[in-house]
């Protein structure tokens, strides 16, 4: 794996931004009778959530009693979803849901509370497998090998055409 340095504006993300707390309060209100419990849980989640983007992957951890830490490699990312409901959009937020090839249907990691979510998504995309190193296109006429491959292909087609005609 090429361990290129992470751009400064991505590496500097360590905490979710304050609008996430507002969103969590609204979510707690929406849970009506469970409000106190939900608010407490989300409060702890918000205040313990830490991100770290390093050269190989993303580290995310949260929780006090039930402490969780998730680490995933950029190259293992299968697909990236950018999701937002209208409340999140009002607050300028969106979730980045990252999937790996593990067996669960849900996202393996959900990055919440990022204001520059488009930049983060584009960064993650650029580190995904198959995003950077484009495989040679079928027709590359700007290199010797490409031209010769094309010649071979043309010749092959001619031969096939003649052989097919011979069979008829």
């Amino acid at each position, binding site marked *: 794996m090429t361990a290129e340095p992470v751009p400064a504006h991505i590496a500097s993300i360590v905490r979710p931004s304050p609008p996430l707390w507002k969103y969590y309060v609204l979510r707690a209100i929406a849970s009506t009778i469970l409000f106190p419990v939900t608010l407490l849980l989300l409060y702890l989640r918000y205040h313990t959530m830490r991100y770290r983007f390093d050269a190989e992957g993303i580290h995310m951890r949260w929780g006090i009693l039930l402490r969780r830490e998730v680490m995933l490699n950029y190259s293992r990312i*299968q697909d990236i979803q*950018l999701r937002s409901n209208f409340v999140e959009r009002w607050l300028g937020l969106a979730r980045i849901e990252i999937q790996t090839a593990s067996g669960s249907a*849900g996202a393996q990691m959900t990055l919440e509370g990022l204001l520059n979510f488009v930049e983060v998504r584009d960064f993650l995309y650029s580190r995904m497998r198959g995003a950077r190193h484009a495989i040679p296109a079928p027709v590359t006429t700007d290199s010797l090998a490409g031209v010769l491959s094309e010649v071979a292909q043309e010749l092959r087609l001619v031969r096939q055409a003649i052989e097919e005609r011979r069979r008829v």
Partner: protein
Amino acid sequence: MTGLSTDLDFQLSGLERWLLGLLSVPEAPEPPDGSPDSIQVFRAGRKYYLWSVLMWAAAITAVGFVFLSASIPLLAAIGRGSGWVEPLAGAALVALWSVFAGVAGVTFLSRRLNYGLRWYIVTDRSLRIRSGIFQINELTMTYSNIQEIRVTSGPLQQALGIADVEVQAAGGGGDRQHQSGHTGRFSGVSNANEIRDLIVDRLRHYRDSGLGEAAPSQAHGEGGELAAAREALEQARALRAAVTRSLQGS
């Protein structure tokens, strides 16, 4: 809405524009990285709009029957009409059917916008699918991670000539109804086979795609010129042999 590609047949009304502003729906998505001339943007077919309106009509009719059965006792109460019961039942009836009208209007509008605000972008390296109004999903997936492609259509969709193209990444779980993260869905496209062929064709260039074993590399990479030149020579010889045989045969 200035967009990547706007459907000329689909004009947003003032009310819809206002609603999109209220929900702060972002503009059309940016295409993912890839060579600019390879970017192709697909939209849901016109028939998908018809299909979703029909689906809406079926759902709203079912809801209508529920409301109708709820309003029968209210009508009976008005019929019996004793003093204060009558206006109360009348008010309840009006409230009930206003809710119905509201639900019908909002769901119709969201169906309409859901059709208008979908983008399926395909580049030479990846694809990006954006859909939704209240909840917006924007999926980005590289070809390297695609495991399978599936084209599905129900009887009504077949009659209308539309289909869903599903692109599946590795990993799993989840029921098919609930859109899991591993699936990209080109819903209601009228040119499903064209899209499928395009993706299959582009996948072919990714020998390392999926989780399977990589195919042996061909005449690219180190010493590519020599290998390609040899291949050309080999083919030229084979051509000469074939032509010779063919001339002798005739």
